[in-house]
């Protein structure tokens, strides 16, 4: 009996020590909120859109899910891939992908928002914890993107604008896929590769006029339209 246990232990220990056939590296993605090429500063910095709005931004938070890298020979999809990016928390702006197979990758893709199954999966933890203020109660589901701020052009209380973009049910789905082409990004065995992804909110604000569009807070046609605009803010340098 003892011999048998000993043998099993040795065999299982040996099993773990077999060197892997594929080599792996790490990718560190930084998602940098910007407006017109300038780093985004919340609350105190006045920005100007090409549609004539002067505005302050008070909050920017969004979900990124199903992060994936695609190359000609290698593919990598992150497991349990849900990230809440918050302009106020610099720690939230880094996504570290470990155990990425070595190779050359042509594109990075992810979804803005969370898939419909996540919306009906019950109480979830981590970045999906409902205490994080990204969950709607009465018409329940995750908010994919929150953009809040102020502009004198808004005929609203405190001149505030509020965009809470979400909704996973047809006809107003608001989850959008982003594919960012990469310039033959290499993942090297045992090394960390760094990738900077910018999110330029000018591409969002230059397509709306805050006098007209200043409050979108339920799943709707307007939310779907603004989700289309937000899809275009991402690019890699």
């Amino acid at each position, binding site marked *: 009996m003892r011999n048998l246990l000993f043998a099993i232990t040795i065999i299982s220990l040996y099993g773990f020590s077999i060197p892997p056939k594929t080599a792996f590296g790490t990718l560190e993605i930084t998602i940098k909120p910007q407006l017109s090429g300038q780093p985004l500063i919340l609350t105190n910095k006045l920005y100007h859109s090409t549609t004539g709005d002067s505005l302050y931004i008070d909050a920017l938070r969004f979900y990124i899910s199903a992060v994936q890298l695609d190359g000609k020979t290698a593919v990598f999809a992150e497991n349990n891939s849900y990230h809440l990016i918050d302009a106020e928390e610099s720690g939230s702006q880094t996504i570290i992908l470990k155990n990425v197979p070595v190779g050359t990758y042509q594109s990075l893709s992810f979804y803005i928002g969370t898939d419909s199954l996540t*919306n009906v999966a*019950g109480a979830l*933890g981590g970045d999906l*914890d*409902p205490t994080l203020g990204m969950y709607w*109660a009465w018409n*329940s589901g995750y908010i994919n993107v929150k953009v809040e701020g102020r502009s004198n052009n808004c005929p609203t209380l405190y001149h505030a604008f509020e965009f809470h973009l979400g909704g996973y049910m047809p006809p107003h789905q608001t989850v959008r896929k982003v594919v960012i082409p990469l310039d033959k990004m290499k993942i090297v065995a045992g090394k960390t590769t760094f990738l900077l992804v910018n999110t330029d909110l000018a591409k969002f604000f230059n397509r709306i006029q805050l006098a007209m569009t200043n409050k979108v807070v339920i799943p709707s046609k307007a939310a779907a339209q603004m989700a289309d605009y937000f899809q275009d803010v991402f690019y890699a340098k």
Partner: protein
Amino acid sequence: MFLSKRLLSFCLFSLFFALLSFTGDELKLVVPEGWPQPVYDFSNNPLTSAGFQLGRQLFYDPLLSRDTTISCASCHLQATGFAHVDHALSHGIVGRIGHRNAPALMNLAWSSSFMWDGGVQHLDMQPISPITSPAEMDETMKNVVEKLNNTGKYRRMFHAAFGDSLATGQRTLQALSQFILLLNSANSKYDKFIRQEPGGEFNAQEMNGLAIFRQHCATCHTEPLFTSGGFANNGLPVDTALLDFGRLRITQHPQDSLLFKIPTLRNIQFTYPYMHDGRFKKLLEVVNHYTAGIQNSPTLDARLQTPIVLTHEQKIDLVAFLLTLTDREFLFDARFGFPRE
């Protein structure tokens, strides 16, 4: 050999420790004979007695509200089927009044949507609505979790339930679900009649009432849950003060205008007042609505297009049958009551 001995004892010790640290004895929801399987996925939130007790404590704790005055049990009283007896609309902090009737809570493991308009898709997420609604508890989930983490009693209870004393939004909601999932009512006189058990003997009036029920009501209020789980416009004229169009608010489909969740009829004797806005106080008023009060509109349910015709005696028999859905074992089950320490 020495190595293997130490390894073996280490393994045994780890196993023993792992068993010890799991203090939550597993609980199981017993599916009553002849019932469908529950829709709730227990694999994501396994029931334990420690989780159930935590959920029960939370359910009865006004700490969940902004000013610590309102608990879930304020509007969901056990003795009346976890409904708010005699109150047409739900009540909130500082005397605020909501805009719908607090529904009875039972057999929710079989429910796939929640609230009168079905706006909530999962039981775990349902409590976020009353907790954050300004007309009810007017609190944030973040504050609730913070208050729980500042309470020694809860740190101990979270540790017992989840093996970690930290309260999170996920764990708080899962514990509430564990309590609510076990609120199972399946021992009414009707159930005993179906199972042919002692105490289930129907008299002639109740038998006649059952036949009338099955002919006119059971396609929406489907046995054994006494709800199909669907939504219907049951011909109620819109209340001009509330202007509540039900499911329209959720889907924005015109065909969902005036559709409301079909409620269970179990324990209906005590869950008055009735309907989404609590407009009817007596069961006979409800029956009279279906025979004489149906208002036609483009979304009126097809099953109510042909008028239901009942004599006065038939109405009385129908009500007599509805009273057989009262389950006193459930209404007075000490496990579901206020947790006395």
